[in-house]
């Protein structure tokens, strides 16, 4: 397939009479040496040609011999241009200058804040610096909380994970420098695992997921860590009420190699008084470390690692969990048209938790998931109109429970399981003319399991499954300001989580599927830009899923039992919705409004009498309003308002007595709804302007300003026969003060 496409395209390239030469290079930030991905390079003389730097900052384009002016643009960076005389293969590297510095120097009145930009295939690229002034809980700026302000993405307060276009939280692929991260939350979901100080940018794909990504049905959150400043040493950090952080970055060899180490620690438990004379431990820490070495002009090595751990302990109860992820990457510019990235990937997520066995004794179990893999990716700039991405990915998953006490006989916990995931992919970014662009490709994925073909319930599965996942996006620019995109996408998924079900499991438990889950999505989007920095985009999507797994009706979950007997396989899912986003990107007031109207349902023959039922994260309305106001050069105010329909939940509608005991009579699965939640958060940042090297800022904020009692959970409590719904919520507002510094 690769060969055919390549040769066809090469033929078309050769049909030009003139000699064609490639121009290639790397885009970096001038002050920090950080690679810039997504910078757009255009040719003044040939407006139909434009390329974007890839996620490693590399770009290449091919032109007939001649004189040209190259133009480059990227959000928050000064536009730049270079004139070239093209008569041989040439290398043009770019060092872009931050626009912020420019404002100070030139005193431009025009202020531009772009928190998220949309790539042409529909990925939302978030600028980590751009979010720094948004309000957050306890002053921790948090990229995963910020993406929840985007349309199509919803979450519940105080719960980890989020739902993208009606998918479940385990259908989101979280990548940190290409390594998957299995648990994305700290501290019961109030913080995400990603320390924003260590991040360069984050790209979120909700629909048109390019074929180099795979393995999850709903979304990809691709987090890229900073490389570290290769020009000067920098120290930055912050002191907050419940957490502090510190980052150090600098050159190992100036301009050639650099490192960054970034750490965070919370001390929330210092403020918790002992309960029943017993101290409560509740904290987390995490560490991001990265180093890179430029071996020669065309080759570089990057080593990234992440380590995080949460500790929760009370009396004899323990619940600790941690992620470890590491990637060793080799970037190679093989030729001026071919860029290669080779990655060795390791990721581990495990936890240690105390559970009570049937004899009410406390036992400790340590479920664990480990992933080891290799990814080879090529970016191939074939001609004037085609850019190919192709490569392969192979990885193995290990599911185990280490050091299991002998008394535990559950064969589910005793038997370790392994799983292979292999994929070959290719896609072509094709620009037939300046109005039309097409990205089409496919991913061939192979899943193999070492499990028995028949499970305890008598369901029969194959040992391996092969899937072809076609993907296509077609975009049409009516003019510079109006773009229409159409996309179709198929994705498969081989691992899933069993959710904790209100404490039945202390943590989400990762499982290997018996049969890959499959999702097909179609979506249509329209973006319109207006003159004065306004932008409006709307999207409509429909998603169909199969082979989903859910708990059976009335299943009693206990991790020490054979959990799988409680599962109903072969579930179907459907989700559809409308997303609207309006942005204002320039001026003193910037921000956006996002609204989602959607529905997501599941069906399984063994659940709810086979009828369709709402997924628990089915939220009809979901609205966010985010605003940033530059009051004075020193003061920035920001606010965020969110409103969302409550999660779907199974409610009882009556009670009855059997054998002298009272029971609740339940209605259909997820047929009820917990009350809607809404909240306003505000924040003020004071950043004195100084020419000195030492820079500092203060951030003051209030979370949940008007103290809304948003439901965390609903339970039903009987008192002398009368059963009443009881709501548990985090009430009232939470203040925060954070002091940030940099030198």
């Amino acid at each position, binding site marked *: 397939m690769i060969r055919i496409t390549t040769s066809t395209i090469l033929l078309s390239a050769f049909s030009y009479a003139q000699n064609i030469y490639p121009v290639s290079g790397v885009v970096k930030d001038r002050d920090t040496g950080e690679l810039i991905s997504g910078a757009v390079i255009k040719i003044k003389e040939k407006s139909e040609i434009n390329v974007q730097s890839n996620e490693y900052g590399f770009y290449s384009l091919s032109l007939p011999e001649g004189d040209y002016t190259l133009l480059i643009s990227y959000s928050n960076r000064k536009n730049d241009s270079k004139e070239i005389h093209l008569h041989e293969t040439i290398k043009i590297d770019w060092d872009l200058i931050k626009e912020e510095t420019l404002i100070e120097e030139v005193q431009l009145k025009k202020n531009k804040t772009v928190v998220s930009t949309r790539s042409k295939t529909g990925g939302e690229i978030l600028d980590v610096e751009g979010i720094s002034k948004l309000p957050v809980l306890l002053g921790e700026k948090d990229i995963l909380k910020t993406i929840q302000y985007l349309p199509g993405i919803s979450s519940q307060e105080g719960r980890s994970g989020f739902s993208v276009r009606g998918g479940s939280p385990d259908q989101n692929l979280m990548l940190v420098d290409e390594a998957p991260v299995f648990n994305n939350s700290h501290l019961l979901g109030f913080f995400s695992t990603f320390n924003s100080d260590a991040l360069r940018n984050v790209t979120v794909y909700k629909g048109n997921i390019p074929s180099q990504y795979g393995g999850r049905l709903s979304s990809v959150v691709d987090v890229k860590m900073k490389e570290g400043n290769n020009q000067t040493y920098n120290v930055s950090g912050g002191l907050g009420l419940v957490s502090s952080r510190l980052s150090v970055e600098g050159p190992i060899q100036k301009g050639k190699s650099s490192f960054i180490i970034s750490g965070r620690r919370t001390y929330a438990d210092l403020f918790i008084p002992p309960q029943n004379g017993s101290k409560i431990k509740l904290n987390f820490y995490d560490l991001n470390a990265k180093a890179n070495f430029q071996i020669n002009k065309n080759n570089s090595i990057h080593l990234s690692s992440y380590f995080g751990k949460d500790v929760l302990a*009370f009396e004899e109860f323990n619940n600790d969990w941690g992620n470890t992820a590491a990637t060793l990457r080799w970037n190679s510019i093989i030729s001026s048209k071919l860029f290669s990235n080779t990655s060795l990937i390791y990721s581990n997520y495990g936890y240690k938790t105390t559970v009570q066995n049937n004899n009410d004794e406390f036992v400790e179990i340590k479920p664990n998931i480990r992933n080891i893999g290799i990814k080879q990716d090529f970016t191939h700039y074939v001609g004037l109109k085609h850019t190919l991405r192709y490569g392969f990915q192979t990885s193995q998953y290990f599911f185990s429970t280490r050091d299991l006490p002998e008394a535990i006989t559950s064969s589910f916990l005793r038997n370790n399981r392994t799983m292979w995931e292999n994929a070959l992919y290719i896609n072509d970014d094709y620009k037939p003319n300046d109005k039309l662009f097409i990205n089409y490709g496919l991913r061939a994925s192979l899943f193999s399991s070492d499990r028995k073909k028949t499970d305890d319930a008598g369901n029969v599965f194959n040992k391996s499954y092969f899937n072809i996942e076609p993907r296509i996006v077609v975009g049409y620019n009516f003019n510079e300001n109006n773009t229409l995109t159409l996309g179709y996408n198929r994705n498969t998924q081989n691992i899933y989580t069993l959710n904790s079900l209100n404490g039945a499991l202390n943590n989400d438990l990762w499982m290997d599927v018996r049969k890959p889950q499959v999702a097909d999505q179609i979506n249509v989007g329209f973006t319109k830009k207006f003159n004065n920095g306004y932008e409006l985009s709307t999207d409509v999507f429909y998603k169909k899923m199969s082979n989903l797994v859910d708990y059976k009706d*009335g299943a009693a979950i206990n991790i020490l039992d054979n959990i799988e007997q409680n599962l109903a396989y072969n579930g179907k899912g459907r989700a559809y919705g409308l997303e609207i986003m309006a942005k204002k990107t320039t001026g003193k007031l910037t921000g956006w409004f996002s609204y989602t109207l959607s529905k997501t349902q599941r069906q399984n023959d063994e659940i709810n009498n086979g009828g369709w039922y709402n997924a628990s994260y089915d939220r009809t309305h979901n609205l966010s309003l985010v605003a940033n106001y530059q009051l004075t050069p020193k003061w920035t105010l920001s606010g965020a308002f969110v409103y969302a329909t409550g999660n779907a939940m199974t409610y009882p509608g009556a009670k009855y007595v059997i054998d002298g005991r009272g029971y609740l009579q339940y209605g259909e699965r997820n047929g009820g709804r917990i009350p809607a939640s809404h909240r306003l958060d505000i924040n003020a940042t004071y950043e004195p302007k100084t020419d000195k090297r030492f820079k500092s800022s203060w951030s003051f904020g209030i979370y949940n300003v008007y103290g809304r009692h948003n439901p965390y959970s609903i339970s039903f409590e009987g008192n002398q026969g009368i059963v009443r*719904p009881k709501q548990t919520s985090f009430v009232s507002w939470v203040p925060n003060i954070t002091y940030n510094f940099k030198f």
Partner: protein
Amino acid sequence: MKNIKYLAVFPIVFSLLSCFDERYIDLPLKDLSGSIVIEGNVTDKSGPYRVKVTRSEKINATSYPKPVTDAIVVISDNHGQSDTLKYAEGEYRTTHLTTQYGDVYTLSVTVDGVTYNAMSKMPEYVEFTALKQKDIPNEYYIEKKVIPVFTDPEVKGNYYLFKSQEYSSIEKITLFSDYSVNGQVNNRTLNGTNYSKNRKVKVEMQCIDEAVYNYFKAQNNPDNPESNTTVSANPPSNISNGALGYFSAHTTVEKEIIIQ
């Protein structure tokens, strides 16, 4: 049921982050009251066998469900035997029905023109050999538990329900299947612990069929109806037409043990 300790940690943790708040609220709950609830048992002892028919109550009602008194209740078997039950003191009783191991019994309850049917097969008899005590020492005290001794038959698919009660405390239910221990002598302990010395513990052993086992397995913990470590749903009933409850043809043997 388990991990109650862990659930208790949550409020404490949240009380730190903000004020943790719990309150009764009004919710627009769909009223499902009035559904028929049937509780029928046929045993290997001589009759009369009893069937209770009630209706589910509004969730905030203070009264106990009242029995349905005008139902037509019939139990028949696979040999042509049929018995129309008579109502007395809140329940329907058989008049002449006799039972045998391995026979299939059909319950039919007609209320307001709607008929609810259920079938249950009385399992073969399994001998309840004895009760023995098991002491499990832990850090602070010795836990005293009870093991029902019986030998599971060679053939697969045996299900057991135990009701154990100490003195006047709440009856505990324990369910066993032969899923992982087929054909073995039982050494699993019953639910319920902290029995005091010299106290008498009464245990009833029932051999039940699979549908009844699944019904009780999925039933929420009755001692604590809001502890939802089970997926909230009505347990799968073996009665048709959406009635709640169960119909069980089962064996029954009782034994007692004095805790040492």
